[in-house]
């Protein structure tokens, strides 16, 4: 009798507990809750606003966790390698593609995309934008928030002084010198330009941009092997070019990184800044910028005799290969809801100017009136170089090594050759480990 009483008591107590703690993810063919890992760019804010619409439509709850750039990569990578499956959708920046796709952490999307071709409208993507998220010919991510580098310049001052908008690196350097008061007392600005100079990823990326402008490729394939190529003649030229620009930059040049670069141009201290197009809202907002309406946009400068091939980056959404099939299904449901012209229009409406991944968005006159740099973005996308930072899995090692060595070079502690040789040695060691 007591045994029966105990059995009933246990059943009454334990079964409801099991029902409460059973994972919400495992309910039927599609999960009812997913989590996206995002990086703190404007697209994350736009997604926050868009997510309730998706939930109302499908009943699938979407959580978004937003990180800064460095932690975004680390958190997602640790989730993928550790198998903790905290996230269903990863936001992958273009240079991380190899690191995530090569070991198989992401779900191949080709079949799913083919089934949704009419919805996704592949022709609406500029080829470099789409291909940036492929690895070994397989599509692993769908473009979500594409970025491209361009030149921001004070068109009012260029017109006033009759200076040609720079197209080549030499023209850019000459313009920097013209607009630096210490070199030209008649300059209307204190300094010619601002760019990334902070030790670490910021200065490393700046070198990669100029390396690409001079025709350099940081990692190349030779005889079937990957070879570090940073101390090529183009790479050294790029590093020496950055050193030559230093006198035309503000005294805190080696503190500047991304948003703080825009602050220099927004406050009218510098005449130019080569930067990511997605940050245009920082200098066109009349409430925060002293130069709103005075900024012109041009293609990223290139070396004489070479075509302009602006650096392309930005985030794509991909599905974590480690989660259950039900969660993958729910994740794909969310991705395909966003990955069509209407979805992109919605993100733009919610303030994500970097959501212009498509021809239909970029050529839209209504958007162009609001985002004046989009015509240049459209031209940039078509000629963009999505490998300027390399997409091989050694990218982070290269970024770390360059982040220190280029900084040392800018401080005068090393020559360009010494700095790049040191960085190249570190990357070569990493590439040897990868074999």
């Amino acid at each position, binding site marked *: 009798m007591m045994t029966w009483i105990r059995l009933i008591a246990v059943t009454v107590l334990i079964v409801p507990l099991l029902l409460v703690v059973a994972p919400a993810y495992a309910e039927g063919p599609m999960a009812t809750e997913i989590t996206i890992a995002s990086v703190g760019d404007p697209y994350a804010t736009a997604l926050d606003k868009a997510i309730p619409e998706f939930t109302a439509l499908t009943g699938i709850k979407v959580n978004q966790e937003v990180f800064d750039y460095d932690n975004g990569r680390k958190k997602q990578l*640790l989730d993928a390698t550790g198998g903790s499956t905290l996230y269903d959708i990863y936001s992958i920046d273009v240079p991380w593609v190899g690191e995530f796709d090569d*070991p198989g952490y992401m779900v191949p999307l080709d079949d799913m995309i083919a089934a949704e071709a009419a919805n996704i409208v592949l022709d609406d993507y500029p080829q470099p934008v789409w291909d940036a998220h492929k690895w070994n010919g397989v599509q692993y991510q769908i473009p979500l928030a594409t970025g491209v580098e361009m030149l921001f310049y004070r068109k009012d001052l260029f017109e006033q002084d009759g200076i040609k908008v720079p197209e080549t690196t030499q023209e850019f350097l000459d313009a920097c010198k013209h607009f630096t008061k210490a070199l030209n007392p008649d300059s209307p600005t204190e300094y010619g330009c601002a760019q990334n100079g902070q030790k670490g990823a910021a200065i490393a990326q700046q070198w990669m941009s100029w390396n690409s402008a001079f025709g350099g490729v940081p990692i190349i394939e030779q005889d079937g092997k990957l070879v570090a190529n940073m101390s090529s003649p183009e790479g050294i030229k790029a590093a020496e070019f950055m050193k030559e620009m230093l006198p035309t930059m503000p005294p*805190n040049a080696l503190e500047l990184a991304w948003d703080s670069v825009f602050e220099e141009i927004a406050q009218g201290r510098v005449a130019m800044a080569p930067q990511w197009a997605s940050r245009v809202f920082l200098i066109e907002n009349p409430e925060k910028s002293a130069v709103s309406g005075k900024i012109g946009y041009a293609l990223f400068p290139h070396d004489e005799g070479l075509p302009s091939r602006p650096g392309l980056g930005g985030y794509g959404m991909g599905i974590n290969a480690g989660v259950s099939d039900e969660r993958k299904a729910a994740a794909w449901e969310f991705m395909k809801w966003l990955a069509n012209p209407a979805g992109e229009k919605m993100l733009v409406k919610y303030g994500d100017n970097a959501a212009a991944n498509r021809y239909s968005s970029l050529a839209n006159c209504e958007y162009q009136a609001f985002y004046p740099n989009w015509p240049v973005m459209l031209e940039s996308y078509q000629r963009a170089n999505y490998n300027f930072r390399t997409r091989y899995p050694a990218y982070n090692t290269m970024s770390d090594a360059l982040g220190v060595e280029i*900084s040392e070079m800018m401080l005068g502690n090393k020559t360009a050759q010494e700095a790049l040789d040191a960085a190249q040695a570190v990357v070569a060691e990493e590439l040897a480990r990868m074999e």
Partner: protein
Amino acid sequence: MSGAAGGQENSTATSARVYSKQRNFFKWAMLLPTIIILLILTIYPLLYMVWTSLHSWNLTKPQYGYKFVGLHNFATALSDSRFLGSVLTSLTFVVLAVAFELALGFALALLLNRARWYVAPMRLALLLPMMVTPIVVGLVFLMMFNGTHGVFNFFLDSLGFGKIPFLADPKTALLAVVIADVWQWTPFVMLIFMAGLATLPDAVLEAGRTDCVSWFQELWYITLPLLKPVILVTLLIRTIDAFRLFDLVYVMTKGGPGTATETLSMYIYVQGFDKFEMGYASALAILMLVMVNIVAQFFIRTIYVEESAA
């Protein structure tokens, strides 16, 4: 001895043994939770770190495997110029920060070592920096040292000296971190010295004043010698803390510009949490532990010798 008396003695001895065993059991039962926590939180992680340091292991690259490499990580560290540079940076920081903190802390303690109405409110105000989280201190000084908008540059520019890119110039970046650390931890040094000054024997000081010694003579020949143990303890604590500095550097400079402010803790962080080279980072952490231990042993032995002599 009669059988009954012998039986009573045996019974007493048995009771004493049982009681002793019960006491031992009770003692160990009370200590066991603490021992378990210590094992889990201190001993096990330390042993795991030593074990990891003997391996090559990248947390985000499982394809490279978990390979036993013996002392290879330690050998690499001793020939790693960046590691050696970070040790030098840490030592430079320790010497500068601790010297300033000791001098300022002692001066403030002397100033407040008197019965005046302003002492209590001043002491309270001076203790406030110690209560602020180091990360917050770092963020505040990051803004204050900003090359364009910082308050220090505002005053420098107003006085006609122009702006200084404190955190972008390798000549000033480490000094900026030192200033932030001195601002936060001088009150701690002041507190210890105030406690030390309060314990000085009045009779000795009175004797000195009776002999009409000057203020400086009293300080140099009486106060400082009597405070030697306190000075040594303060040096020990602040040296260990300063050597382990991480938060200020992480927030203010991230070890830059270049590697000008890359302390050993920062370099270990880079290896462990940027590059995820757990084996190498563990080896560096053990080397740091050894270095800190050597410094601590030096001070402890000196204090012990001082106390024995006294």
